[in-house]
């Protein structure tokens, strides 16, 4: 195994080096010789941020397992993670650019903050969930042997959280790549700022040079890098930790060799933990009554802290606290009248994208589950598809679609496509995993009864995957809110295009006018929407779906 890994490492490195040499010698672009430098900068940026996220995630995660810690940190982080990351990014840019007078270090810090917030939650909730899931008998055994303090953490807690730390890291790392392009290429106040890196180079290839081919080449390079690094790091670590995350997924009576080896052989990315963790994260918060239903006090504290934080970030760029008149002046602009319309537009866009995703994911997932042949086609597609940093697709898609459909319609189609491309994976993966984990006995019963085709789908498959569909929906909406901010607004060369929506309103406010108070307000509205949808729809549906869920034996 070790020799195979070493072989894979060397061969992969050689392949990537020759790819770089080939690309640099073939592509004509003034910046192409900087490609290795950009790669290293992006890698360094993501790695450094990941390390910070790991250390702080571990620290806060462990702190959150203490009694007082859990009362404050868990509701706080839960609310914080509901804020669409890309929404407060403009505020962070404004802050850092003015704090460092436009120096590159300010941009770099802003980019790292964006990446950090995309990474932190997976690690934090992974740690909390893992500590909570330490079996009672082990905790009791430790107590009976008088294991306390450091000894307890060293011998019980740390080993217990290693698997979820690894899967949390896998997720965080993937999210980092996802947000990379948004972090490296920033438009603010009508000006473009860019940090040297693969993401900004890709954006420039599309917007500045108008070279779609180069953009696609860069996208392929990024995807290969993601897959290669995953193979070297997380895949190996997952194997080493023997985290058993693969085990409960597959049972007999299922094209298991196929599904799993298909996934693993194709890209060597440990995907399964991703879903498990995502599910785990939600479960850590949702399923225990203590954490699921916070006390009024805890909720209030969290909300107050978040509001304070948002206003701090939003106002700190301006000297002092704004007066009431200033606030009124900032909020009561003519465009404010469009807010309900914008909200409706964004909700409609998300809903349409969600149902398209759900439709495709359901049919793909069920087909893959029922027919071996489909699984062989879908899993590799899934594998590569979800390794592509979707945000990087945006410029490429827009440039080609706007040529066919014109600016606004092109942007609308791009926006929907992006949303679907982003939302679909969580649904698909959740559905496939759920179909696979239908217990053998239930499969046998349906076989024995003689159910076929649609009958089987209706009576067995659909009800069995209901909880997974709900979980997948929650996750896909969460990521959809981010993508919507990114995809409703497009500054393309000298032109600025936007679709009516909350996301573009937020972008315009932040990027063109620099109205920080309005920005904070819009962010608050968006967060409130996310939380409201989560509580009013998803958590209810999940509770309902789980009542009749399959008990895994």
């Amino acid at each position: 195994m070790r020799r195979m890994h070493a072989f894979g490492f060397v061969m992969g490195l050689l392949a990537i080096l020759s790819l770089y040499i080939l690309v640099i010698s073939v592509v004509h672009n003034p910046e192409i010789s900087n490609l290795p430098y950009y790669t290293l900068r992006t890698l360094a940026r993501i790695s450094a941020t990941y390390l910070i996220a790991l250390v702080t995630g571990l620290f806060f995660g462990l702190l959150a397992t203490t009694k007082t810690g859990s009362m404050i940190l868990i509701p706080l982080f839960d609310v914080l993670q509901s804020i669409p990351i890309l929404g407060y990014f403009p505020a962070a840019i404004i802050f850092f650019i003015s704090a460092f007078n436009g120096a590159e270090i300010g941009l770099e810090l802003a980019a790292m903050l964006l990446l950090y917030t995309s990474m932190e939650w997976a690690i934090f909730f992974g740690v909390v969930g893992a500590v909570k899931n330490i079996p009672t008998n082990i905790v009791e055994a430790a107590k009976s042997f008088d294991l306390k303090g450091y000894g307890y953490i060293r011998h019980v807690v740390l080993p217990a959280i290693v698997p979820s730390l690894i899967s949390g890291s896998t997720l965080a790392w993937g999210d980092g790549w996802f947000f990379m392009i948004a972090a490296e290429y920033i438009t603010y106040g009508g000006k473009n700022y860019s940090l040297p890196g693969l993401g900004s180079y890709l954006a420039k290839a599309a917007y500045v040079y108008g070279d779609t081919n180069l953009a696609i080449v860069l996208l392929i390079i990024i995807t290969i890098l993601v897959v290669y690094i995953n193979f070297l790091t997380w895949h190996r670590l997952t194997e080493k930790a023997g985290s058993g995350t693969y085990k409960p997924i597959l049972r007999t009576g299922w094209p298991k060799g196929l599904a799993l080896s298909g996934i693993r052989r194709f890209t060597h990315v440990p995907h399964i933990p991703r879903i498990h963790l995502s599910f785990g994260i939600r479960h850590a918060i949702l399923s225990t009554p203590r954490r699921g239903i916070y006390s009024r006090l805890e909720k209030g504290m969290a909300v107050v802290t978040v509001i304070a934080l948002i206003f701090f970030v939003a106002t700190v760029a301006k000297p002092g606290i704004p007066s009431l008149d200033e606030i009124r002046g900032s909020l009561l602009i003519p465009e404010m009248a469009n807010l309900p319309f914008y909200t409706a537009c964004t909700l409609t866009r998300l809903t349409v994208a969600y149902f398209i995703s759900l439709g495709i994911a359901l049919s793909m997932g069920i087909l893959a589950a029922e027919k071996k042949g489909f699984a062989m086609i879908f899993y590799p597609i899934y594998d590569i598809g979800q390794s592509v940093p979707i945000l990087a697709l945006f410029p490429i898609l827009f440039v080609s679609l706007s040529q066919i459909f014109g600016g606004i319609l092109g942007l609308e189609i791009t926006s929907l496509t992006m949303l679907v491309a982003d939302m679909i994976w969580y649904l698909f993966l959740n559905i496939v995993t759920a179909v696979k984990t239908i217990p053998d006995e239930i499969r046998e019963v349906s076989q024995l009864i003689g159910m076929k085709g649609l009958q089987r789908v209706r009576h067995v498959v659909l009800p069995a995957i209901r909880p997974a569909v709900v979980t997948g929906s929650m996750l896909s909406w969460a990521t959809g809110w981010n993508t919507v901010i990114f995809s409703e607004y497009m500054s393309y060369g000298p032109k600025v295009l936007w679709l009516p929506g909350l996301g573009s309103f937020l972008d315009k406010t932040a990027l063109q006018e620099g109205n920080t108070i309005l920005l904070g307000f819009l962010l608050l509205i968006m967060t409130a929407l996310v939380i409201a949808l989560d509580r009013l729809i998803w958590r209810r549906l999940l509770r309902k779906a789980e009542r009749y869920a399959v008990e895994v034996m």
Partner: protein
Amino acid sequence: MKVLEVRSLRKVFPGERSIIALEDVSFEVGKDEFLCIVGPSGCGKSTLLRMVAGIESANGGEILFLGKPISGPNEKITMIFQHFGLLPWKTALENVRLPLEVHGIPNEEARKIAIDYLGKVGLGDFLDTYPHDLSGGMKQRVGIARALAMRPEILLMDEPFSSLDELTASTLRREVLRIWADSNLPTDTFLMVSHNVSEAVFMADRVLIMSPRPGKVVEVVKVDIPRPRTEHARDPKFFDTVEYIIRVIEKACGGKLPGCEINDGIG
């Protein structure tokens, strides 16, 4: 009359190292007979049961049901499962109705039959309860009602009592025997897989002993204890039979029991 004939059955699970699960397995089950298959875990007894049910295919040999080879699921052969196999999103009534409706029985009639059989197993008051809210014993009763409602000739049971607590299991064993003896029900041929030797001796007419992988028939023991066996469960003959079967399994396992999960708790 032979209801079921199994002839030189062979089963191989393909893979990197293919596993021979069953090798040259032959036996017969007569009408009105209660046959129990015992053997160490992994000897292929559950696979054998699934092959009789028509949901697992053979790699050699054949299984005849009333003289005709079995090629797929047959509505006259039904099964109850170790973990009950109930659909959690359907009520007790819906669970029992489902197979009837799949086989084309009109809704109203299916409903009537389902209610009737749920009543027979003592669940008349729990028609609209979800499995989630039923105890283990009640869940298995739903499983039994579902299997009987199809009015099958053969009832297959895959360790039907092993996920129940001992008291519940003991009650249900007697109930299954009562159903078996009930001449109003068309289901008279019972085939059960168990790893509990006392349970086998308590219930079966004959006990078929299988060897570890590859599973072969080692011996078929006729249980010569009069019924009802509740009255003879303390007889020396009962203990001797249990003892004898355990010896045979031990020998088949190469003289030692580790890994052979033989449970000799009193049924």
